């Protein structure tokens, strides 16, 4: 799948994993892929044209998804002498980022990679499809934006839609650039 990705598109996927880890999420969803794209130069530049930037999008994600373990009341646990952050740090050291999050249970623990959600996998497939449809030899971070928009139902698509980013327009813009 990733052989056709440019270095920057790969970097976006790697950054997506870091974003998931930073939020203590046990999965890489479309929202993390979007944040990953926003950390790469070309992806960030494309989305900046629509006023979409990493900081506010991260806030959107936290608001929609929450952090992976924010259903655990740290202050309450502290009354028992339990430092939740210390517990989490140890568990994540053994089992990887987001191991204590709601959705982490049952994943491939020994691989230590955060798994993609089915929607995120679909985004990667659609990225490939859109890139091919545009006749691109290489899949770039911009094509990931198309994949995210085309997927249409994930959190990233919702965030992008709410911020006025539309598939057809982005596609036309990328096609124009590729032709130029």
């Amino acid at each position, binding site marked *: 799948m990733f052989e056709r990705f440019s270095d920057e598109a790969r970097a976006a996927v790697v950054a997506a994993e870091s974003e998931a880890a930073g939020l203590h999420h046990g999965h890489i969803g479309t929202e993390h892929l979007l944040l990953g794209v926003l950390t790469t130069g070309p992806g960030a530049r494309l989305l900046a044209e629509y006023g979409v930037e990493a900081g506010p999008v991260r806030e959107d994600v936290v608001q929609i998804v929450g952090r992976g373990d924010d259903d655990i009341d740290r202050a*309450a646990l502290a009354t028992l002498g339990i430092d939740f952050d210390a517990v989490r740090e140890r568990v994540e050291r053994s089992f990887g980022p987001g191991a204590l999050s709601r959705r982490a249970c*049952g994943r491939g623990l020994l691989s230590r990679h955060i798994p993609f959600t089915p929607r995120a996998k679909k985004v990667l497939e659609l990225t490939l499809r859109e890139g091919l449809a545009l006749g691109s030899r290489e899949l770039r971070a911009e094509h990931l934006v198309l994949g995210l928009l085309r997927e249409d139902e994930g959190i990233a698509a919702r965030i992008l839609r709410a911020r006025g980013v539309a598939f057809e327009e982005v596609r036309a813009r990328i096609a124009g650039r590729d032709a130029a």
Partner: protein
Amino acid sequence: MAAQETRDLAGAVDSTDPTVGLAAVASLRTLVERLEALHVANARERGWSWQEIGAALGVSKQAVHRKHGRRRRLLG
């Protein structure tokens, strides 16, 4: 919230206040459930039988399989 701040807050609250005590129990239970799921999944990946896992947790193999077996099949 910084760890020190959390501890100060914790120290300031009356430990017999049910609101605090029950919230602590609820969060502890959530934490234990997550840890259990994590360690059961880990044991399965390392080839432990449900019998062995049940014994280590102090419950029957049926109980542990009923609770954790389905989740793994769904995701597997």
